[in-house]
């Protein structure tokens, strides 16, 4: 099949760009630790027994190392528990989240924290909060009549 010279140039350029994009994405995901949420961590949970399954029986934010925190959270219609979250500036927080009812979202605008929270699955993402302030955590997946009221705050001091 004959392909015009200009079209060959165009397609070569286009396909090369795609390959470059994919290399950037793949290398940063698999060699630089910038992967999608929940990577390298896959376990499920009985969605009807979230309140009896550790660690979600006691949702809390706890210190796990120097400036390292783990926030164990449960998303529900229409809120998150624990209700208050506070860490010092410069802390890295690992959010470990599941849902006790329907599908929810977990997003902190202005950061790369953005993940789906599914009943029956545990999702995880880490972020370092350098700037002090109040960070909005909101649900970005429709979960019912009160979806727009589903949010909490993380205070970085």
């Amino acid at each position: 099949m004959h392909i015009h010279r200009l079209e060959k140039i165009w397609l070569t350029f286009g396909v090369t760009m795609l390959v470059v994009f994919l290399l950037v994405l793949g290398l940063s995901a698999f060699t630089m630790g910038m992967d999608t949420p929940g990577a390298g961590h896959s376990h499920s949970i009985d969605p009807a027994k979230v309140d009896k399954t550790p660690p979600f029986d006691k949702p809390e934010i706890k210190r796990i190392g120097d400036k390292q925190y783990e926030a164990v959270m449960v998303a529900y219609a229409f809120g998150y528990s624990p209700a208050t979250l506070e860490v010092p500036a410069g802390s890295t927080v690992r959010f470990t989240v599941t849902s006790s009812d329907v599908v929810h979202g977990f997003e902190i605008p202005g950061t790369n924290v953005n993940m789906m929270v599914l009943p029956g699955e545990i999702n995880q993402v880490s972020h370092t909060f350098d700037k002090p302030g109040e960070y909005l955590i909101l649900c970005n997946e429709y979960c019912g009549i009160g979806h727009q009221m589903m949010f909490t705050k993380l205070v970085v001091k």
Partner: protein
Amino acid sequence: MIQSFDRKDGRLVLAHLLFAYAALFLGGICGMLQSMVRSGSVTLPAGIGYYQLLTAHGVLMALVFTTFFIIGFLYSGMSRTLGGALTGVSRKLGWAGFALMGAGTALGVVMVLLNKATVLYTFYAPLKASPYFYIALVLLVVGSWLSGYGVFAQYRTWRRTNRGKLSPLLAFMGVVTMLMWQIATLGVAATVLLQFIPWSFGWVDTINVLLSRTLFWYFGHPLVYFWLMPAYMCWYVIVPKIIGGKIYSDALARLSFILLLLFSIPVGFHHQLMEPGIAPFWKFLQVVLTFMVVVPSLITAFSLFATFELSGRARGATGLFGWLKKLPWRDVRFFAPFMGMLVFIPAGAGGLVNASNQMDAVVHNTLWVTGHFHLTVATSVALTFFGIGYWLIPVVTGRRLTARLNRIGILQVVLWCVGMLFMSGSMHGSGLLGDPRRTDYTTYNDSPESVLWMPYHVAMAIGGIILFLSLIVLMCAVVGLLRAPRGEEEYPIGEVIDTAEKTPRVFERWGLWVAISAALIVIAYTLPLIDMIGGGKGSPGYKMW
């Protein structure tokens, strides 16, 4: 001498188009109201919920308007290029499909109006709607299958009576589109029939949420290509004729459709990149396959602009861009799809951002994504469909697109473009700031973030109003077309340029393409699906509205 359109086929096509326009108008009213609610300009009366409107908007626009219009257009192309009339079998299948899809739409809309199915058009489990909402979806899908069988039957009959001949390009593309649809809808059929219906009737207690989402997105991404491929048919075959040019290459056009068939399906995970329960390797594999589907779009862009330039130069255009002036800008049959093509450039680029593995975290489930598909389907595809309607209604009714109706059409298209600039532009902007999609009016207790989003919401509402005005003009134009003076309007079908090479016959070896498509799907999905079916406890259902 213009060949007149078969009258029985014309009625079938017209029924599909008018049903599509009615769905579009209702969906448009919902859309305008949503943009006004979200900007805080109005509150809904009579206990109508924002999410109820949003469900209606999504179902009517994404599922009903598109599917009806596409099937109407495909049947017109089959009738015209494969023998001048549909066979009895194909026409009956077309009407049977229309009846089932119509019944499904009616049932679905009633369920949404009764507030028994406020689950949005993606109906993510474990939100549990009335079982009759899921049955409505089954009727829609099965109806579209019957219509697909009608397309295949017409094509087979033609091949039998025209042995050894290359099939007409428009018909070939229609067959590929319907073949892709048959393969893609298996996913949604599986989840609705095996998961949602037994669960919503209470025959089983729980549902596997991750599995249902995966089966949905196995269907959900090719769904967007099901919208796009008929638009490509218009761009490849119809537009060259309207501008008085020739099709640049028959072979490349067929190649790009085959690539769309192969690569539009095994890519659903790029909608689930932020989700738990899917290993990073499988996500990335499908991201790679997603990027492959850009290649046919690159081929398409080249072919189309080659057609424009060649036809402009053939009519004496000089200089690097002189051919642009030779294009028939005042002809709505060209202007509407051309604006669609133009918008597809930023739309496609935005799509690459969404599919970019971990980069998706910046935009996932924000208004950016809503802005993206308001460019792709609601501008590129919708404008192309509007452009088709302006000549197809006259063709099938034996009337003429008058100069006055053409001017009304141009006005409608300009309004649509301006409205969408406001709507989609502000969605992209506020989405980048983290503004979530699918959310009723809220300030999150006066959070400073959300105050920043407000001006964008006002711009969206302005866009919504302009778009609604465009729809009113469109409805007037449709009524005008139905009452236009009798005559014969041309069904524009481009011819291939004389210098093009012979098309390889391999493109019509369907067994081969179905086998490759199946192999890609098996590779991309088998292991993750086994994991999902085996793992995890099911979830009970919830009615959260």
